[in-house]
């Protein structure tokens, strides 16, 4: 495995991480917001 391969895998992991973390923030953040807004 070369440095280029490591670079490609790292970039791939970063793309995968973004696809994972953005929806998680929207959903978990949204559900927390539901609680906060309706608790008022």
């Amino acid at each position, binding site marked *: 495995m070369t440095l280029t*391969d490591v670079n490609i895998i790292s970039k791939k992991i970063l793309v995968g991480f973004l696809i994972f973390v953005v929806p998680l923030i929207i959903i978990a953040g949204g559900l927390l917001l539901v609680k906060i807004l309706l608790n008022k």
Partner: protein
Amino acid sequence: MALDKVLAKKIGKDISVSLFIYALPVVALFAYFAIKGQTPWVNNTHQPANVDVPAVFKFLEPALKNIRSWGFLVIALVLGAIEFALGLYDNKWTKSERKVDIVCFLAPKFLLPPVTAFFSLKLLPLILPGLANEFSWVPFWAGFFIIAVADDLTQYWYHRLHHQVPFLWRFHRTHHSAPYMGMAMASRQNFIYTVFFSQIYLTAALIYLGLGFPALVVTVIKSFITLSAHSSIAWDKPLYKYKALHPIAWVLERLISTPATHQSHHADTVGDGVGNYKGNFGNMFFLWDVIFKTGIITRRYPTTFGIKFYKQEEWYAQFLWPIFKSKVAGSELSANGPEVGDEVGPVLFDESDLYVSKQLKREAVA
């Protein structure tokens, strides 16, 4: 190979729309509780949901409850055996293809669980401390829509980007290299593609947050839809044959992946009204392809499958590229191999390539 600017713009626009779609089930839940004036999280009075399996399918219950471990394996094996008995693999399931299919089917069953267990049991409590079961008050119907959208839309994007972003293609190439369709295709993936499947970790995080039961139900439904979409058993054929069933076909082919629309994605042609390997990215839901205009709805089945630049690479290269490279000269998976992407690219046609269709060869010559 750089990402086309027009395509990059379209991807950016579609991602923006997706962010809104992810939020929709949560907005619906907010509206529901606001109208009803309920705050079920106050005393967490919510009763855990339970869905009874119909009596006819009772024998399947243990496999369905264990869909994340051995359940999927058993169902896929049974359906695969039916395909095999019906002779649906024809004579294309050569020794080298069998090796790739079997390794890709079995190895992740042993290699993936320790990774996901570590993520669920060790990493999530660290990343989201004190939030275990925080959202267990979410009603089943809402949890179902949240998970179904989150899991499948995330997989749509993961899949679409592996086709449209050139440097990602080779991680997904193994899934398209087989010149046939069948049950084994659902698992035929490069391991690095599988182990970094974003939706696995997203769903695991939502389970940790308290949406475990809806996640199980979604997984069962999704497993059946994706397995049957990859299958060579065309269960959707009667829907197109009988006029009375056309309204059902119309809805289903827009909502979920059918053998016709998903086989189209595995075809080795594009632009002929049947094959659309540059689209039809949906996994459980085809709806994403309808929304983002990446799909074609066809009621015909492709006659040839696979990729143009397939060189029947070794199983270890297909399963573990770029850790292990192919020794086949000129292969995309070889050391310093060309970055072809999922392009047809007539310039790159190789006469020794077994899977270049006659029509495309004629076009290349013209």
